């Protein structure tokens, strides 16, 4: 399987009857009760819903950071339940890009190093990774901040850096957990615009968790997660 050989003709994401809960016995909390979803390749899906309903949990399952207690998740035709921990790590490194509400940039590293980190983890050389990171930083308009540390950047710049990092390894699937939730309205608008443009330019399949109905409306489709599962918003 080559780096960019997205398998044609299969959904980017297919979720069937996924269940997930936390705790045990009388403290058991059922978060996801049989959630199903199909996301086409190239589609940008907004996931909305009240706090605590399990949006982040669902995103973590799609991102192979956690495993469902029941149900099946397929990414680009691959059954994730059959993957080893090493294969799951490899998918997170090469196929999936994450953007979190808080930028999640590493404090001890410059912006270039932060953006290059997925490539370094994947085994790329520092020079090669730095060149690629520079390209991504230029794409998000941060080439002048290459050697700055995260605490020297504004909130919007930090989030744009996080987007660059999520896309540096040319992933197939972009998962964003309230990427504008920590930004003022104007900055949120510009960051979402950037996200939308990169999604289109790179042919990504994206799932965006957001509380912002106006931004959600600009996605291809919006689904609301509730205790009964996913439904069109």
């Amino acid at each position: 399987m080559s780096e960019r050989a997205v398998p044609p003709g299969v959904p980017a994401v297919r979720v069937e009857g996924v269940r997930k809960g936390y705790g045990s016995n009388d403290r058991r909390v059922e978060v996801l009760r049989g959630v199903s979803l199909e996301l086409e390749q190239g589609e940008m899906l907004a996931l909305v819903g009240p706090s605590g309903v399990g949006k982040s949990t669902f995103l973590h399952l799609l991102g192979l950071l956690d495993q469902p207690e029941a149900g099946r998740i397929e990414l680009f035709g691959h059954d994730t339940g059959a993957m080893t921990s090493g294969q799951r790590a490899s998918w997170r490194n090469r196929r999936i890009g994450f953007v979190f509400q808080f930028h999640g940039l590493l404090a001890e590293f410059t912006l270039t190093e932060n953006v290059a980190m997925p490539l370094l983890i994947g085994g790329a050389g520092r020079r090669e990774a730095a060149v690629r990171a520079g390209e991504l930083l230029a794409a998000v308009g941060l080439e002048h901040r290459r050697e700055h540390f995260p605490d020297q950047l504004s909130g919007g710049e930090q989030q744009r850096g996080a987007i660059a990092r999520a896309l540096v390894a040319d992933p197939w699937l972009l998962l964003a957990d309230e990427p504008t939730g920590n930004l003022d309205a104007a900055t949120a608008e510009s960051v979402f615009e950037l996200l939308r443009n990169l999604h289109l330019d790179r042919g990504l399949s994206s799932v965006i968790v957001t509380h912002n109905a106006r931004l959600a409306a600009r996605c291809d489709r919006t689904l609301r997660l509730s205790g009964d599962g996913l439904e069109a918003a």
Partner: protein
Amino acid sequence: MRVRVLLLLAGRYLGGLRRRTHVAAVSGISFGGMALGAAALVLTLALLEGFQHTIRAQLAQRGVHAVLRPRAGATLPGGDWLARLRARHPELELRAIAGGSVWCTVPGEATPAELEVVDSLSRVEINRVLAARLGVGAGSWMAIASPRLVLTPLGPLPLRSRVEVERVTALRPGEDRAIVRVGPQLGQALLGAAGPRVVEVRSPDPGRAWDVASHVQASVPDGVEVVSFRDLNRPLLAALALERVMIGFGVALIMAVAALNLLCNLALLAAEKRLDGALLQAMGLEAARVRWLYVLIGLVVGAAGGLAGTAAGAAAAWLLDATRALPLPAGVFIVSHVPFRVTPGAAAVVVGVSLAAAVAASLPPALAAARGDVVEGLRYE
């Protein structure tokens, strides 16, 4: 395993001073602890080795290097093997010793003593124990009374010989009996024509003490047992080795304390970097590599601290020895100052102990960090 990214992460976490995190401070404390422990261990081992080296050198300088003794019976087998041995190894000193018990007397004093008949001796020597008991020195006269009897008008009396003490010899290691040494002519007169009980072998070069037995082994008949320098001094050498191990182990507990400090600091680091660990795993770093990251950080601190401490301890030991900074009272000790001697083996042991302690200390936080729930870690933000 792709270690470059782990080295980058470990280096940046350890060098976090420029980001004003407390990571560098706690790493510095861990480094200092490991360095202090290593330096203390090196100094202690150098002190022990200094004294023990002096003792071993004194043993080789003053003691015999091998003993030839009969495998059975009280005397060595006859024949010309001893003459041939002398001819074959002219570089070695061989002293054939016969002997028995005698009484040594001076007016108003008498004491039992061992009489050693040394074939290469032509004068009368006594050791310091005998000299002290009789209150005599070189040039004094004394009488040696043997168990052999002679008939006199007063009846049978012990055979006596009046001799001049020509030399008082220093005590050999472990020598605590009163001994008088005489030549073969006087010896035969006092004890009769008894064959030698042992042959003492010495090399003029004390450095060869350990090899003398193997050199003469092939030249002695079957009835003669060769006792090596090592076997002659086995109890003392074993005691010295045990002393070094036990004291070294005791001082190494400092390293254990330093390792516990490292463990605490790594646990703090892992807690502070919990979000980083989760983010790195979200970017594809395997949990096993998160574990290796903390082991690597521990190893770097342990290796740096161990090497720095070993170097500092070795330098201090060398300086203390070269400048004779710690003098000892003359006449009480066999050396004039406290000796320090650093051996490559001891330095390697200290560095090895540092690394082992660092790995052992880093494993619990490393395992805990690798076991941590990624999703929980992300919520940590």
